[in-house]
């Protein structure tokens, strides 16, 4: 698993070899629409830099001209010229911001949408591996960083480097001796800049990963709040969280030390250069090879250059941060999407619901080699309209088998066919329209009950009598009469994950959702586990009506659920070892009896009667 962030300390240094520039260039597809404005912004920013460098030129003329000749009349034009240039600089900077900032946010938004789309497209196996906290920190802070870098970092970095280069030329123009001193003094800066890159980008990467881990810890503490409270483990999880937070703190301080290192040089170099230039300048001026005006202008120019020089450190670290962010984003973007639509999809015009498993094999990618396939040659046929119960021990692969039917995972061998068509030849949209699922842990989205139930019928999203009818019927079949008692009935928003509903209520809504989808094939993963006996009996009665005409595969743990089915398939050691009617299997199959029957209640009876 090369992409699991928590266990790849090596990635940072490996990827480092790829080069910051090349990594950042990968942003191109999103940046391209904004590129012209960003480049224009750079040009404008550069002009602003040049204008600020031009001001010392006027100062030199002023000092060597009117001020040395004591000609007060000439001061006005010079001051006005400085004023004009100053206003021009402000206007150019305003223009730069105007040009660059909006496209920056657009690039960020486009990337965020692509990132989200990619994640929605990636198969479930990817999401099994990745904690959503790690994904979240990429979608939020990494993308924010990219935006800031694009609309600010890269523009100023390039412009300031060019400004510094031009500034040096100007310095040489005033006096080559002073310019040379300034240049030589700045050599350690460039060397340290290189060292800094090495040191900083490693720490930056580690910091971002640790932030992702911390986000995961936060998420789990919130989602697992009931468990933590039930066991009074608030303290324990706080300690664990604190350890992680401490690690992050250590990394952040290391980062600060790297930054402090470059700050030292960034501040030291100009000051030392200024001091040496002052010495040399005064000496040159005393020997007459430099006018006071030139000396004046030299320092004015060097002062203009101070900010660009100081900003380089900040901009460089921002660039490395952005590069790390891009690396992290592309870990997701580069993830191969194993489950895709076929190139020339087949459509089933009128699905009848004949579902065939032919020698289906499945193993999880990370399953060690010595283990046999979890599903090791499943053969099973469901006739149109037939209801098949799937029975097997916990962990025998029942849920996995149901997940294969809608291609949440792909089979690793064999095939599943719907009406004779390999499900891999259908588009995922089509397939999932024909086959609807209800999961055991019923996921509800933060939306109204209506929207949750009609999730599989986007065409009914607008409402109308048909929508009302479908909703009413589905709720009725699933015995979700509690909906009427909710504050706003079917329009009540159920919280994210349906937190405010009980497990049984959520299960019934999830069941109603699958029913409302009116699929050709219904796949239900232990859909009644959280219901009480009464409700269960009523739901079953309703379900029978639906199942009379719909092909269904139902994972069952209880005999009562099994009785819904026409036939039962027994899953054992990765294969279907027996198919038949409940009563037949009960009579003939030991393993089946072991799995499904609680009728060895004799000793319980004794206790009850005692």
């Amino acid at each position: 698993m090369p992409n699991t962030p928590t266990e790849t300390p090596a990635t940072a240094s490996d990827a480092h070899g790829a080069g910051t520039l090349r990594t950042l260039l990968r942003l191109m597809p999103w940046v391209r629409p904004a590129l012209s404005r960003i480049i224009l912004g750079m040009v404008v920013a550069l002009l602003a830099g040049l204008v600020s460098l031009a001001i010392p030129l006027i100062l030199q003329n002023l000092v060597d001209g009117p001020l040395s000749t004591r000609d007060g009349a000439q001061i006005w034009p010079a001051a006005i010229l400085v004023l004009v240039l100053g206003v021009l600089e402000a206007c150019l900077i305003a223009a730069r911001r105007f040009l660059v900032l909006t496209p920056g946010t657009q690039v960020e938004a486009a990337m965020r949408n692509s990132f989200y789309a990619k994640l929605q497209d990636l198969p479930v196996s990817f999401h099994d591996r990745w904690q959503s906290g790690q994904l979240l920190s990429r979608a939020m802070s990494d993308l924010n960083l990219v935006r800031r870098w694009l609309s600010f970092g890269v523009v100023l970095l390039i412009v300031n480097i060019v400004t510094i280069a031009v500034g040096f030329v100007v310095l040489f123009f005033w006096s080559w001796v002073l310019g040379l001193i300034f240049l030589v003094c700045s050599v350690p800066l460039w060397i340290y800049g290189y060292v800094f890159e090495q040191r900083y980008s490693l720490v930056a990467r580690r910091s971002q990963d640790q932030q992702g881990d911390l986000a995961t810890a936060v998420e789990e503490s919130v989602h697992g709040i009931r468990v933590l409270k039930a066991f009074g483990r608030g303290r324990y999880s706080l300690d664990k969280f604190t350890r992680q937070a401490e690690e992050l703190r250590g990394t952040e301080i290391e980062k600060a030390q790297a930054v402090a290192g470059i700050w030292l040089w960034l501040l030291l170099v100009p000051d030392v250069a200024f001091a040496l230039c002052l010495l040399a300048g005064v000496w040159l001026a005393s020997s007459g090879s430099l006018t006071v005006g030139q000396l004046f202008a030299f320092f004015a120019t060097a002062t203009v250059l101070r900010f660009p020089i100081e900003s380089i450190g900040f901009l460089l670290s921002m660039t490395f941060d952005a590069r790390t962010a891009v690396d992290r984003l592309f870990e997701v973007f580069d993830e191969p999407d194993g489950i895709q639509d076929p190139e020339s999809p087949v459509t089933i015009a009128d699905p009848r619901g004949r579902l065939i498993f032919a020698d289906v094999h499945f193993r999880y990618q990370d399953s060690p080699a010595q283990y046999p396939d979890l599903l090791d040659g499943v053969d099973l046929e469901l006739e149109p309209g037939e209801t098949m119960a799937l029975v097997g021990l916990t962990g025998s692969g029942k849920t996995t088998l149901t997940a294969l039917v809608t291609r949440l995972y792909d089979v690793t061998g064999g095939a599943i066919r719907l009406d004779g068509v390999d499900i891999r030849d259908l588009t995922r949209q089509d397939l999932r329209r024909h086959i609807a699922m209800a999961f055991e842990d019923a996921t509800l989205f933060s939306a109204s009950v209506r929207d949750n139930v009609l999730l599989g019928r986007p065409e009914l999203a607008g409402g109308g009598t048909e929508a009302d009818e479908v909703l009413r019927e589905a709720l009725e079949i699933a015995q979700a009469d509690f909906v009427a008692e909710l504050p706003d009935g079917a329009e009540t928003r159920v919280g994210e994950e349906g937190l405010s509903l009980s497990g049984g209520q959520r299960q019934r809504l999830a069941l109603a959702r699958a029913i409302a989808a009116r699929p050709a094939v219904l796949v239900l993963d232990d859909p009644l586990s959280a219901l009480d006996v009464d409700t269960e009996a009523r739901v079953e009665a309703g379900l029978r009506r639906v199942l009379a005409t719909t092909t269904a595969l139902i994972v069952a743990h209880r005999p009562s659920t099994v009785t819904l089915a026409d036939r039962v398939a027994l899953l054992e050691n990765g294969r279907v070892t027996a198919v038949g009617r409940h009563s037949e299997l009960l009579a003939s199959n030991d393993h089946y009896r072991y799995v499904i029957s609680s009728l060895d209640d004799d000793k319980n009876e004794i206790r009850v009667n005692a």
Partner: protein
Amino acid sequence: MTVTGVEGEERSEYTREESRSIRDRSLRLLGSLLRPLRGRVAYAVGVIVISTALQVAGPTLIALGIDQGLPALMKQHDGMPILLIVSAYLIAGIFGAVLISHFTVLSARISQAVLIDLRKRVFRHSQRLSLEFHESYTSGRLIARQTSDLESVRELLDEGITGLVRGILYMGFIAVALVLLDPWSALVLAFALIPLVFLTRWFQKRSQTRFRATRVFSARLIVQFVETMTGIRAVKAFRKEARNAKEFGDIVEGYRDANAQAIRLFGIFDPGLILIGNVTVAAVLLVGGFRVVSGGLEIGALLAVVLYTRRFFDPMEEMAQFYNSYQSAAAALEKISGVLEEEPGVVDPTHPVDLWQSNGAVDFTDVRFEYQPGRVILPDFGLHIPAGQTIALVGSTGAGKSTLAKLMARFYDPTAGSVTLDGIDLRSLHPKDLRRAIVMVTQEAYLFSGSVAENIALGKPDASFEEIQRAARAVGADPFIRALPDGYDTDVNKRGGRVSAGQRQLLSFARAFLADPAVLILDEATASLDIPSERLVQEGLTTLLADRTAVIIAHRLSTVAIADRVLVMEHGCIVEDGAPADLIAGTGRFAKLHAAWRESLV
């Protein structure tokens, strides 16, 4: 009108009083975070004051060099003054740089200390807040508070405050230097402060609302994102991708727009500053130039004045850069302080009563409970559970069974009346004793990232491996755990999708087994188990529950087999109460339920 806690946090407009109370609240929070670090802060401020002063000395030294050093060298051929001045410059420069570099590390240490304190506080507080809060405040928002909002605070601390302090000092020292060097120029600069103040006020007012809006959108973004990723199976199965992409796209656009508006303000503010700065430079040049001509000012001093004026506005730019991090951090702090202000509905006792050894007798006396005023779940509930008794709680959905369990585990407190353990009101019992004595296992068996063993050990963090294994064996989880690739060390996260719902329940059972409480509450804790596993668990329970109090809520009446007593609940009242055999033999509700269940087994 004021807002308390997380109330109204989705808004971006507040009345004046609300704004003030929210701001005060976040300032108080910031103050309380910085107070323990006073010493370090003072030291850091000292370092930065000296280093800034040293940095500001530069132009004055250049002026001295030109006005004193140059004439001395030219006229008296005396190199001493210039050498002294240059040495002073070198020393100032080197010390200044070293100190600032030192300060960078210092300030990082301070900001990280504040941050870790804040992280821990929010984390601890959200753990302390009662379920009532968690059930109404979506988890995505709580995650947003602890991730992106804290990130904004980090940015402020890392960059903002340093920039601000340095900036203010820098400007202050330059003002002092100007007054000393040439009061007239200082006067010109003072005039420049007037538009500066107006511009800053304008920016401050506008950006506050704008940045609040960005926080609202970013929280929505996080909520939608987390929900999609945690529910990815349902998203795929019901083809919600396109609709999600649309919804997400709308929020992204809203966020983008809010961001763009906030940044646009900045795009006026920043050039505005430069404009003021450059106009001032021109004015200083004009005033200074005339005075050089009239002999009132030296050339070198003019240079210094011009350099100072130009540099005076440099940090302003930097401060403005960081003003936006201040704004977003302020908005974030407002929300964080809101969460911290929330009072847990279930409060830890001020004078906790210890209970070292619990017998497990639980009493409900005149308990009334309503989730919201008017929605009564338990009207007037009384129940005595003697120590060691195993109770099966039966009744239709919504009868109040889970509420009863939650009251017993003190997830909620009764609206009236009391729940006691061994005669001690749960509200005054020490939390550590309460949690040790009473453990609840629910249907949602949440697994945390980490190994299988670590997840079981949650029941008793200091458990040895043998104890963990014994617990797993007792509930029949041992065989499947051994079959995992790394056995007990298998990372559940890597295989999160693969530990089946039933197996998760077994693990959470093992947790409870390991915790070894005096009172065990099982709320639908066996719902996802297959029958053989359930049978194993039941066997385990028979030994486990022999000497302990237990309340079992289960739809499958097989549980009744191990119960000493059955309670049938209806509309928050107990309608039947008796030994299982008696009730089955009778003609009441339970007899019917039991008969129906027996039938369902075939």
